[in-house]
């Protein structure tokens, strides 16, 4: 993850507008407002993960198994 200290503040509205187009998810005005509020909350939780050193190099929890052992 990039060092957020050097990053500009997260613009949730701009992110939701761009990502909804990228993902093909149409948002009504009411839904857009709710999605922005929720992505802001999710961003706050995601920032807590940035505090853990060396996480980028860690193995993720689910390990794909191509078949039974």
């Amino acid at each position, binding site marked *: 993850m990039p060092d957020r200290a050097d990053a500009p503040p997260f613009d949730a509205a701009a992110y*939701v507008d761009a990502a909804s187009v990228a993902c093909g998810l149409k948002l009504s005005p009411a839904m857009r407002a709710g999605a*922005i509020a929720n992505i802001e909350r999710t961003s706050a939780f*995601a920032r807590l993960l940035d505090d*853990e050193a060396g996480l980028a190099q860690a193995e993720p929890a*689910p390990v794909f198994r191509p078949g039974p052992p």
Partner: protein
Amino acid sequence: MSGPPAAEQSAVARVEAALRRIEAARSLNAATTVLAARALARAAALDRARSDGAAPGPLQGVPFVAKNLFDVAGIVTRAGSAATVGDAPARADAFSVAALERAGAVLVATTNMDELAYGFTGENGPDGDTLNPYDAARISGGSSAGSAALVGAGVVDLALGSDTNGSIRVPSALCGAFGLKATYGRLSRGGAYPFVASLDHVGPIAANPRLLAAAYDALQGADPQDPTQVPRDIGPATPQLDAGISGLRVGILGGYFAGPLDPDAAAALAAAAAVLGAGEAAELRLAEAGRAAAFVITTSEAGHLHRAALSRDPEAFGPLVRDRLAAGALAPAAWYLAAQKLRRRLAEELSALFARFDLLLAPAVPCVAPPRGAETITVQDRTLPMRLAVGMYTHPLTPTGVPVGVAPRAARDGLSVGVQVVAPPWHEVHVLRALAALDAAGFSRSVRMEVTR
């Protein structure tokens, strides 16, 4: 309660009594579909088989209810959402429903829940809120709201729930029931409506640890329909329930889990520690980050699951859930991957603690059930968002996949709180032995109300 002991009653008599209690408890808004004809036919078949000399099952004639995300043949699996009403009826019972019925139990109703299991409160737009059995102005907890409320009210002694971030544990604590979230991958999720594939568990909620263990025993078994299930030998818990906790080293999770706690939640934890001989504190350093990881994984996977339906008909979803799902569908992969990496570290840290302990205690909820509709709660001078805070102590443990049980404890004003009993992966028997020891010591005495029988 009068009349013959339950075990001596016919299955039909027990089911008829349960159906009467469901009707008497209708104001709780906990049951969504009452399955009277199916249940009575099933009970009559059980009674006929008994009179023909068949041996009774371990759950012979026990009426039970199931959260309405479990498939029940012939009815639509609602998962608490208006978005599912157009779905085809289920063609067969969920693995869990069938497993309990094979053991002799009888499904009598499906139950209310948070929409799509996305919530800790029991609030539901299309079906209405489930009410707390001890105070109708308060939340039941969720998302297995109706299942826990009906057990806590004494309407049934057994229920099926699911737990993604605390959805068995939170309502069990707030409604005065025992609950078990088994190890991730232990019990089949076949025929259960999905929410978050990485975190979904199913499990029993019961009036006492003995019934909880009997249900857990019945729910075990391989299901080729569930690709997340881990092949394991069946390990019956019931024969070991009376072993007590001799030989088990019990600690208390501190740090993040130490507070905020209201006096009832703190007293419950202290009482459980005294019964189980827990003294030494253990700190799970990554607990807060683990909660964050659970949040990110939940919103991302749930959002992806429902993205197409959100595009097609967003107004079919309640606004609370719709907006959470929309945000999750748009969340960047960087957040999700960081959460899955943190999850592994969290599990490794907890595993290291289990080198010193066989069981760990933690609060199940920070406080008694908050008022319905509250946006915030204040606990030990900290004001917290209510809908998240009621699950703040269950949420961080879910990503580790370990088995966790809940024992309820009577609190002020006739309400209930609870404690979590946490064990290493695949050690559900440790959890159930501890719950039995707590119950034998009177830990949960006077916590249950009884609807007129």
